[in-house]
């Protein structure tokens, strides 16, 4: 075991995860086989809304190798429907039952009606086609604005399509608008997108001798365990949920899905393991989607560019059912609705509406990309209205550095920020004057080039239970995080984290944190995650929480180990524990590094039991971390685009991002998260759009017609950073998994508007597809 004096934290270590992934030796759900496994295939509704008249399973059941065909009726003993875990105090949320297999009616295309279980992966698909379901089609609600106005109803028993109405208001809005010289209003659309991890979902359930093991491609194994246990009437400790290698999540796997419940139920009923692997078509129609908000946004400002009031009314299309956090998601944006600006009055009013579409829920950024898109597009619109440079307008309204921690109108306290510094850093890379000259020159050649900016902050590190929990925002569980650190006899270390990474590289980042504190090399620190049967209770990976919350838990648990080790070493070296330090790979007395002990030597004493009197043997500690505040990463992005005015096609020429996520643990991982986040945002802005037709048929049912960006559409990204440590945790870190996505869509949109300004285009809504852009140009020209 070697250890360098140089800390591992802050270095771009290549990932511990990668050897298994680059050689094809990783194990995703579909790579795991159990003897005697039955395959499952679902029979799904082709109708957007219908009553189920009858289900004839006889032909399917009669096929060779088919063991059972189950319907909602067969699963009548479920303890309840699928969960929705948000109960905001004082707000009524309509929450009709959502069953794993439909009971009596279907509410969107893809709604599961039956499941076929059999010996062979292909044969169950054949048999599913032999299940005859008679539907009585019902009128559909597709357009959210029509749906909120009245019938037809998605859930007729409610007599309304409204899910809920929720408001967050801070400051005197009326006075704010009264103080404004100029008020502008825009209709801002954040359209529906798919999470689209490249690994679709998959489950493998194995019920044996009273205990259930579920392998599932999830971001939240502990939540899944809780609800599997509740719905199946099992005691929670009898259920073990394992998230093996998970091929991307992006929020789409922050869910408790019906297929998980059905597979577990069927495994118990049939006494065999049950496996289901989602097809891409299923993924596009039933794995929860995101965004889908229509907002009326009003902003007031004084003539000299002080924003005085900001009012956002959102109609959120939530689809056919509430899933785990469906109606909560738009609210997450409300807390940062004012962006990085000092605005005295900010009000967000959200109305959720049911439609006959796939439910929405958390997708990368979850509410915050929508909020950031609105404020950043509106800042450009206001700048144009006032005739003030759009970066100047931003600077005039930035929350100043000296205000932090800054209490904002939306009721939260921004932990730290230096927005001027990140914008200044961005402008070191982007010479706006030179760009304007180039732009003018290109226009003479008929090339329409534009530049767009986005200065953002976001709220993440989802934690403080007192704010997010039942008494606060109303999530049904505290969002703390756990860690257990075990030092082995050998001096190697195993870390158990309650987070559940799926590509973020936490095995590496957490090992770096532990290695420095214990004086070992990261190569001897193994990080175990995603298994409810091993470490302590945990909360999973989402909301850019894993480092700020889970990593902090790892740091605290490690510090407890260090404290105990120091006592052991102090007794051995006849020194005071407070004089023991970790340096050069050894625990030693300050000033006498030659007499130190390695971690392995300390562990030897701890496990032999020759510990100081009154001390328990062993060297293992657990922490449950519940931070006092969120973290608020921020930054400044610039996007340069060319627009082909003949076709409407937008090409991203250059993308520059300056992000601040506090103290960096691993710069390589941070860059990777930012790259992927930006691509996700560009994807939404330019290409991706989940489309339903007027009958509720899904038009974008596969990757043939849902356009994910490829390598050929994207540029290299130019990154830089500032470092403003967070006071919310001891390491000064912030999350970075969603920042790029949150920042990117307005940068792209503002760039397109800038490019087309000479043609009279002053506003456009996403997605900026060639057709949309071309039409906008034509309309502007016709004015």
């Amino acid at each position, binding site marked *: 075991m070697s250890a360098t004096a140089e800390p591992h934290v802050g270095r771009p270590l290549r990932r511990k995860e990668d050897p298994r992934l680059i050689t094809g030796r990783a*194990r995703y759900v*579909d790579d795991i086989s159990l003897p005697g496994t039955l395959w499952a295939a679902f029979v799904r509704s082709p109708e957007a809304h219908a009553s189920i008249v009858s289900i004839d399973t006889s032909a399917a059941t009669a096929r060779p190798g088919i063991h059972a065909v189950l319907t909602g009726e067969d699963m009548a003993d479920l303890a309840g429907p699928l969960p929705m875990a948000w109960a905001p105090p004082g707000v009524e949320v309509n929450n009709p039952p959502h069953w794993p297999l439909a009971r009596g009616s279907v509410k969107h295309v893809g709604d599961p009606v039956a499941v076929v279980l059999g010996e062979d*992966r292909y044969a169950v698909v054949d048999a599913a086609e032999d299940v005859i379901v008679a539907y009585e089609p019902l009128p559909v609600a597709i357009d959210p604005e029509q749906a909120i106005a009245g019938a037809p109803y998605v859930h007729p028993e409610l007599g309304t399509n409204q899910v809920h109405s929720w408001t967050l208001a801070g400051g005197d809005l009326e006075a704010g608008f009264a103080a404004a010289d100029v008020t502008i209003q825009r209709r801002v659309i954040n359209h529906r997108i798919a999470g689209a991890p*490249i690994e679709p979902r998959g489950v493998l359930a194995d019920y044996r001798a009273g205990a259930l093991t579920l392998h599932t491609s999830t971001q939240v194994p502990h939540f899944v365990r809780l609800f599997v246990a509740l719905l199946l009437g099992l005691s929670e400790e009898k259920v073990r949920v394992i998230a093996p290698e998970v091929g991307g999540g992006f929020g789409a796997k922050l869910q408790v899905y019906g297929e998980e419940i059905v597979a577990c139920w069927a495994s118990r009923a049939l006494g065999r393991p049950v496996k289901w692997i989602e097809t891409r078509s299923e993924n596009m129609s039933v794995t929860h989607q995101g965004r889908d908000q229509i907002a009326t946004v009003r902003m007031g400002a004084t003539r000299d560019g002080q924003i005085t009031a900001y009012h956002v009314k959102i109609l959120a299309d939530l689809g056919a059912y509430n899933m785990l956090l469906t109606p909560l998601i738009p609210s997450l944006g409300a807390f940062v609705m004012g962006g990085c600006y000092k605005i005295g009055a900010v009000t967000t009013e959200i109305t959720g509406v049911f439609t006959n579409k796939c439910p929405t829920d958390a997708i990368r950024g979850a509410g915050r990309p929508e909020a950031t898109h609105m404020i950043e597009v509106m800042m450009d619109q206001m700048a144009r209205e006032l005739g003030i440079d759009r970066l100047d307008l931003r600077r005039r309204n930035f929350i100043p550095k000296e205000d932090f921690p800054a209490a904002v109108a939306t009721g939260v306290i921004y932990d730290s920020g230096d927005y001027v510094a990140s914008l200044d850093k961005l402008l070191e890379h982007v010479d706006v004057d030179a760009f304007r000259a180039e732009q003018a020159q290109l226009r003479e050649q008929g090339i329409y080039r534009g530049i767009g900016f986005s200065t953002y902050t976001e709220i993440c590190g989802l934690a403080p239970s007192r704010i997010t929990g039942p008494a606060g925002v109303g999530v049904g569980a505290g969002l703390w995080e756990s860690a257990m650190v075990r030092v082995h006899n050998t001096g190697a270390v195993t870390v158990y984290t309650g987070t559940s990474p799926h590509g973020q590289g936490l095995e590496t980042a957490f090992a770096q944190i532990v290695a420095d504190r214990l004086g070992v090399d990261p190569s001897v620190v193994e990080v175990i995650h995603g298994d409810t049967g091993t470490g302590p209770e945990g909360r999973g990976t989402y909301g850019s929480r894993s480092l700020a919350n889970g990593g902090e838990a790892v740091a605290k648990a490690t510090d407890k180990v260090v404290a105990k080790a120091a006592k052991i070493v102090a007794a051995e070296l006849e020194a005071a524990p407070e004089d023991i330090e970790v340096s050069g790979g050894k625990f030693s007395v300050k000033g006498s590094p030659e007499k130190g002990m390695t971690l392995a030597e300390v562990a030897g004493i701890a496990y032999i039991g020759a510990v100081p009197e009154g001390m328990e043997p062993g060297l293992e500690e657990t922490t449950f971390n519940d931070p006092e505040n969120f973290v608020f990463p921020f930054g400044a992005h610039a996007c340069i685009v060319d627009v082909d005015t003949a076709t409407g096609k937008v090409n991203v020429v250059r993308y520059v991002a300056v992000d601040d996520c506090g103290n960096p643990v691993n710069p390589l991982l941070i860059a990777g998260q930012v790259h992927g986040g930006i691509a996700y945002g560009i994807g939404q802005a330019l290409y991706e759009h989940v489309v339903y037709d007027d009958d509720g048929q899904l038009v974008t049912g596969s990757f043939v017609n849902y356009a*994910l960006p490829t390598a050929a559409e*994207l540029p290299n990204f130019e990154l830089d950073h500032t470092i403003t440590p967070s006071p919310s945790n001891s390491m000064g870190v912030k999350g970075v998994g969603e920042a790029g996505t949150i920042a990117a869509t307005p940068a792209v949109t503002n760039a397109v508007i800038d490019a087309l300004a000479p043609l009279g285009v002053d506003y456009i809504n996403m997605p900026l597809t060639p057709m949309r852009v071309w039409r906008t140009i034509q309309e502007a020209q016709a004015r």
Partner: protein
Amino acid sequence: MSGSVTVHLTVNGVEHELEVEPRRLLVHALRDDLGLTGTHVGCDTSNCGACTVHLNGDAVKSCTILAVQAEGSAVTTIEGLGGEGNLHPLQEAFWNDHGLQCGYCTPGMIMASAALLAENAHPSEAEVRHALDGNLCRCTGYHNIVKAVLSAAEAGAGAPVAS
């Protein structure tokens, strides 16, 4: 189903005789029959490329080929490209340059890149981006994938892949 047929495949240098349904996809023969689970399935429509393998040296999407169509062929999968202690320069480059996150698209991405470099040992950035436009990644934004392919090319990865 309608009986089975015999298929002869040489996979990663090892000869196999398989009894498969005529409709069995090559990817399922590799994954479920031969246990080579490094090749992944990400879509039903041959858009994502997670299932990319080499068939007689060419990159193909193994979810869009029947096993019987590969009769008598030599197939190379990610497992045959290189293993721990014996990494192919592309595998090494993806590791060094952080060219992967969740890893699901990675085997297909590496196999597609290997086929590119076998044809064009020193591609430009634009050529790499164009060549990989049949392989989708949702995590990396492609930035580090492109970087990895270019650095592997620099390191001489363009030598033909043994199969």
